[in-house]
């Protein structure tokens, strides 16, 4: 589902072949810096990453760990409701304890960040790796390879990510640590969008004159792919990846919520929500904390992803921001001669179809 959204929400990616200026990295930072929302989001993400990385430090500060049971802190007579006010908040347990088990909520929340971000990032890396490989192979390979890979990509894009991931989790072997498994599954089913974007971009790049010039210079295919194509693919791939991370966070949380993702004793925000509705009256923070954590994380990552897109493709972004008439530079007009004009039309058509 979100695949389609990402693809169609990324105008220009994969379609336009007009390159970014050479000093890409510096320009990128300059453009990113001008967006206040993206900067704030980046700060939030940085904080979350810090929390995730330094999770043991935080819990050590509190003096708790995420897996120890504290039976004394829950009232087994009342079904496991935390003892004490506000769900058992105390100086030892800053955010209270989990109902039934009495595990420390703060520790579980902090370690949940670890799982959430770790799984999402690992899955994204995998998705990008597979997607770029498949997309490049399809875009550069012969007709049959391209047709086969495109078909496979279509299948991956068509199938709902959640359904496939869920189904796969039924058959994966049990030996692995669960978070690793979840990341692998999400990574292996969610690469379709990247592959589509990369293939489309590769094909449009391939027809650019500087690639033809490199061929005339006598370079072979590998060198051309490395020097002329890959650098130009970076921007759309990064843009896409930035939007994949929040999606993956949601998918992990959803799988864990359904009880097939990350399983106890490992802490995960999604899994914390599974039984939260039962306890909302006695310990509302058991519901609200992981919900808020998820919301803030996904929101920050989405805003940051939008910012990255704006910084990488300012033309598309300005198109989205200002819809009023822009006077075009005469320069761009002059380049359109009869031949180029004719080429444009089928291209825009294809874009329209690919984009959806």
């Amino acid at each position, binding site marked *: 589902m979100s695949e389609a959204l990402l693809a169609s929400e990324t105008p220009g990616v994969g379609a336009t072949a007009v*390159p970014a200026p050479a000093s890409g990295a510096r320009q990128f930072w300059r453009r990113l810096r001008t967006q206040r929302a993206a900067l704030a989001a980046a700060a939030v993400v940085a904080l979350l990453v810090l929390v995730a990385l330094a999770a043991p430090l935080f819990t050590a500060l509190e003096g708790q760990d995420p897996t120890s049971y504290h039976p004394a802190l829950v009232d087994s007579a009342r079904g496991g409701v935390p003892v004490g006010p506000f769900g058992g908040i105390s100086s030892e347990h800053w955010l209270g304890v989990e109902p039934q088990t009495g595990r420390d909520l703060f520790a579980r929340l902090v370690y949940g960040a670890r799982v959430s971000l770790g799984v999402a990032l690992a899955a994204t890396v995998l998705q990008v790796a597979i997607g770029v490989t498949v997309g490049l192979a399809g875009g550069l390979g012969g007709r049959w390879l391209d047709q086969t890979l495109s078909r496979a990509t279509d299948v991956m894009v068509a199938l709902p990510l959640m359904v496939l991931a869920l189904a796969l989790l039924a058959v994966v072997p049990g030996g692995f640590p669960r978070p690793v498994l979840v990341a692998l599954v999400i990574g292996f089913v969610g690469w379709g969008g990247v592959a589509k974007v990369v293939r489309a971009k590769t094909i449009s790049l391939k027809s650019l004159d500087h690639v033809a010039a490199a061929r005339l*210079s006598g370079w072979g295919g590998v060198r051309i792919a490395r020097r002329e194509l890959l650098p130009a693919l970076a921007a759309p791939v990064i843009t896409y990846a930035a939007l994949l991370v929040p999606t993956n966070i949601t998918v992990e949380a959803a799988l864990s919520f359904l009880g097939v993702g990350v399983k106890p004793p490992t802490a995960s925000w999604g899994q914390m929500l599974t039984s939260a509705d039962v306890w909302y009256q006695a310990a509302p923070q058991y519901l609200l904390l992981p919900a808020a954590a998820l919301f803030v994380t996904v929101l920050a990552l989405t805003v940051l992803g939008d910012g990255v897109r704006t910084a990488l493709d300012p033309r598309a972004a300005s198109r989205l921001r200002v819809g009023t008439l822009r006077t075009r530079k005469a320069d761009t007009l*002059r380049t359109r*001669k009869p031949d180029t004009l004719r080429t444009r039309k089928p291209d825009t058509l294809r874009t329209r179809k690919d984009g959806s």
Partner: protein
Amino acid sequence: MSLVEVEDLGVEFGAVRAVDSVSFTLAPGAALGLVGESGSGKSTVASALLGLHRDTGARVTGSVRVGGVDVAAAGDDELRRLRGGVAAMVFQDPLSALDPYFAVGDQIAEVHRAHSGVSRRAARARAVDVLGRVGIPDAARRARSRPHEFSGGMRQRALIAMALACEPDLLIADEPTTALDVTVQAQILDLLHALREETGMGLLLVTHDVGVAAESVDDVLVMRDGRVVERGGVAQVLGAPREAYTRELLSAVPRVEGSGSGPVPGSGTSSGSGSDSGSGSAAGADDGVGDGGGVGDGGGGGGGDAEGVVDARRAEGVVGDVVVEAEGLRRVFGRGRRAFTAVDGVSLTVRAGETLGVVGESGSGKTTLGRMLVGLLEPTAGQLRHGGAEKPGKGAAPGVQMVFQDPVSSLNPRRSVGESIADPLRARGDRDGDAIRARVRDLMQRVGLDPAHYDRYPHEFSGGQRQRVGIARALAAEPRLIVCDEPVSALDVTTQAQVTALLAELQRELGLALVFVAHDLAVVRQVSDRVAVMRNGRIVEQGPVDEVYGAPQDPYTRQLLAAVPALDPAVAAERRAARAAGAHAVREDGGAAGKELAAA
């Protein structure tokens, strides 16, 4: 009262002052041309007449009155009535200027309704009516077609019909023919002329093409960098320009009549004889402006038959051995019912030191031919011999390079120009970094670039400079043949002249064989020794330039040449009359469009 009064107009986009104190008036029914190169601000002025800069962040100063309405002060409703109702605009690219999702007739009806408020049915009838008036055959049926089902010329007619539907007092045409082939361009210009005579509307024509202006307007305003350089009657400005810039601009314009035959070393002696007939007088009249912009060599050449020229030049060591020889080249794209033959049995020979011009309209197969010659495309059939030997296997041919059309996409934006130029050197195995750098610097110097700019990136260069980089990269491979695919069509006319001059110079110096592919007949004449005219994948006529241009044998060549705008308004009027006479025999664009439709 004047129809348009522009006083001290200034337009700023941020820190860029695109238009600076421009003033002019346009009487009802008069025709004014705004002529200038890219960045001269001419289109910005046109947009200002309709208040199109409103809400764009542009800062507009001065006053603009159109049909008595102060554009800056007008309220939203008043401005809406002005747009279309008083002054209607025709845009450059007729495909993107129409909504792809709606029938052409509906779009015209929508615009008409916005002004007249008539019923849907009446508006549709009106749309059919105006489509018929602009020469769209079977207008009632075609009104239901969508833009992509129209040919380029018909789309532009439809846009003009949209303007007509509102019965404006002024037609603003912003580069109305730039995206069109030369024969279609002539038809559109003729149509504009006829409509103006019929309705008495005023015309403001924005164009970079001096010839187009000469064909269509009474007065002309030459603009540069946002300012008016010169103004006056079109005959006076184009015939006897007062300002240096105007002279420079005019001298850079290549003449299809075959002027600018400056001192051509070598060929000069053997030329001049024979068949420079027909347009010879026109060429003489234009003489003396031809080489002002550095249009040196390659143009003109001489008369005599093909072998005569070649023999003469070979004797002087200018034209050498056969570099590339093509026989029955064919290229088919697609298969089955969708198969399309882009190049259909082309044979040609290019010798060292000579330039073969390949000229044709869009879809003629000239670019495909060029790409086959360098080995970027494999021919479906036919033979291609480089230096007498069959090309070995697939892929790029040795000793052959290409200069591309688009100065933006032909250079990798992420690599410094020096590295791009060094590509062929590294690819053939050179490893000595210093030697490579030195060689690249030499090449940059040679093509007129500052060698100190080795580490700069393409976006820091202008279009003309980028084409020079492309030429340097081609030269680095020490080729015997360079195929230039529309190398100057994206450039301004003054830059064009410099780049073609450079190519000619390099050819003379290095004894290169050049294949010059272009749609612009005048440019091709300027640079070529021999020319091949292509149509629908075939060469319809081939021979020495002066022969082909002077005494064209094929009717298509004649049609092409007749369609080229003349710089002399008097000649332009004459040609228009001739075209009008010819048009009775052949229902030109409509017929062609009909065929295109049938094929689709």
